[in-house]
């Protein structure tokens, strides 16, 4: 008798607790850069992510979510403090976003060791694709080398013989060039690394004008890209040398570069002129909400939110079911705006890559036009990851 009453009380208590757990919204920490010149990335990522949340009526996968937006200011030590606070004080089960590799590398271990899910929607550093892969990490974007690998493939197919590579002198720049060289087996003639804060490229452009390569491959993000492309155009080099790039001309920089970017080639994993209906709907909704053309990082963040939603739906919003959530994430059973979407063993996507050209679109704005698609590209580090 007593034991059955106890069981009844226990069952009642459990069900109340379970209901309470379901009723409270799932907290998701969103890390990004929202200040400084790099804020364009954080802003696009957040807007893309929140578009999915708003379209779900404040829910992802039918589950109430509360997004905690945090600015990491491109400072790894600040990011570790932010992550710690989110995990210990707020008790977030998921951390999403993260614009830059150095931030990702600073926080990944403390997040995954606490069995908190890390869903990156931009940065995709190579160590986390290989030896340091973790079942709690998922990347909705891409591995960082892949965009330049796509451009390298394109360059090989075009048969360029004399190519010079340029990038800022830091780890990110060197990784991008390494990715290009992986697929451009012809070999680059020279690599030029400029100081990270150098905005005046007149010296390097004079050297390029003298050396007359067939093409150059550059990686100059945000302000560096705006300066470089404008100066390249002003020096009259755009007619003499083909400009291949990665991360230099995109929706974040094209409004500032303007027509000077016409003809510049880039590699990306989401093309604005995709004819996939879900992609078109996303682009229109994003433009209506923000007045800007979405970039690939906004697209990845939108997909990331939908991915999280699909997994939340499967566990009914109960984040204590970590194994089930992990399996649901791995299954990636959601309608991606990139068409088919699946994960490799290291939780990085296997997806199509696009070689695009900057040109005016049908509405007269500077945009990206698809030249070539490379289907189902996997990253180069998956075999180094021990996961199956």
């Amino acid at each position, binding site marked *: 008798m007593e034991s059955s009453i106890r069981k009844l009380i226990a069952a009642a208590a459990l069900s109340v607790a379970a209901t309470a757990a379901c009723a409270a919204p799932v907290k998701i920490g969103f890390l990004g850069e929202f*200040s*400084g010149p790099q804020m364009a990335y954080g802003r696009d990522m957040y807007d893309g992510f929140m578009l999915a949340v708003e379209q779900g009526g404040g829910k992802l996968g039918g589950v109430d979510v509360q997004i905690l937006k945090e600015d990491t200011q491109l400072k790894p030590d600040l990011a570790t403090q932010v992550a710690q606070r989110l995990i210990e004080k707020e008790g977030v089960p998921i951390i999403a976003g993260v614009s830059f590799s150095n931030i990702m590398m600073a926080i990944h271990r403390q997040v995954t060791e606490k069995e908190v899910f890390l869903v990156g929607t931009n940065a995709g550093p190579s160590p986390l694709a290989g030896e340091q892969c973790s079942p709690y990490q998922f990347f909705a974007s891409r591995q960082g080398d892949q965009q330049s690998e796509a451009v390298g493939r394109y360059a090989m197919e075009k048969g360029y013989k004399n190519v010079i590579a340029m990038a800022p002198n830091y780890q990110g720049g060197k990784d991008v060039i390494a990715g290009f060289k992986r697929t451009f087996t012809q070999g680059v003639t020279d*690599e030029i690394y400029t100081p990270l804060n150098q905005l005046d490229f007149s010296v390097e452009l004079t050297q390029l004008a003298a050396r007359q390569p067939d093409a150059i491959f550059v990686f100059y993000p945000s302000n560096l890209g705006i300066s470089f492309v404008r100066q390249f155009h002003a020096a009259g080099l755009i007619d003499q040398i083909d400009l291949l790039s990665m991360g230099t001309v995109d929706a974040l920089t094209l409004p500032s570069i303007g027509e000077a970017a016409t003809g510049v080639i880039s590699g990306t994993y989401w093309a604005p002129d995709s004819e996939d209906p879900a992609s078109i709907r996303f682009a229109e909704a994003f433009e209506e909400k923000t007045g800007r053309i979405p970039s690939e990082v906004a697209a990845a963040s939108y997909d990331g939110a939908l991915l999280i939603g699909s997994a939340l739906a499967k566990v009914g919003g109960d984040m204590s079911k970590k194994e089930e959530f992990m399996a649901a994430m791995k299954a990636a059973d959601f309608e991606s705006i990139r068409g088919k979407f699946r994960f490799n063993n290291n939780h990085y996507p296997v997806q199509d890559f696009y070689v695009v050209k900057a040109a005016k679109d049908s509405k007269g704005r500077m945009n990206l036009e698809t030249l070539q698609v490379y289907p189902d590209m996997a990253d180069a580090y998956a075999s180094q990851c021990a996961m199956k």
Partner: protein
Amino acid sequence: MLTWNVLLMQVLNGLQWGLLLFLLSAGLTLVFGIMNFVNLTHGSLYMMGGYFGAYAYGQTHSFWLACMVAVVGAAIVGVLLDRLVAASLYSRDHLDQVLATFGLILIFNELVRIVWGGNTSVVNPPEMLTGSVEIFGLRYPLYRLMIIVVGLLVSGLLYFIIHRTRIGMLIRAGATNTKMVSALGVNIKRLNLIVFAAGALLAGLAGVLNAPISAIQPGMGEPILILALVVIVTGGIGSIKGAFYGALLIGMADMVGRAFLPIAMTEFFGRAAAQLTGPAIASMGIYLLMAIVLIARPQGLFGGRHA
């Protein structure tokens, strides 16, 4: 590639960069020399020139109008700075001045971020200057040529004012011995204001001129401020001539060093080593130059006596 036309082109690049640095350094050296005032906010005046120009460009799409707005706007900010902040600091210790003007840098950076957002603003060069012209067999942007012309014109104008007018004489006298000038009945406060405003005007001009080839963003003044400090220390504080030759020297050394140091290193040490250390050593070059000049002549090339 060490052909003669490449060398001449890099010298031209150095000339353009040097003249831009001169515009910024002229005001800085005078303020330091005459008022004995360390003005770190000078870089922010350069930035304000860029932002005012971008704002005017956004409204009118006229480059020339943008320039005028930038120059006038920077001068006004300079006057406000002098009256509200600097005037009370002239008699204070250099450290107090550094702290105050550094604080102003932070305020200005946040101010532009609040008003214009963290985005990059854009100024486009005027239509007639968007092309390039063939010099020494290589193409050189017309716009940079314009900067050289403007830089030389301003230098000539400054020379004329400093050496052929009464106000220039007062400035030179003030740079040599402020107390005596004041004792002789010259309104030293008004002189300071004129010098401060003129320096701000030139900084704003440099900011808007550089805008089409660079990026207008919060904090854009600091890197160039550091170079301007190197210039005035090398050239001699308080000397316009020193600022001119110092800027040309530093500008040339920077550009030519960046161009040919990697090549020289490749010759001697091989490509791998050159790629690894070349960029780092090239950006160190101008500081090494400054150190060498100071060892040989601690007061700078033209420092000590005259403007």
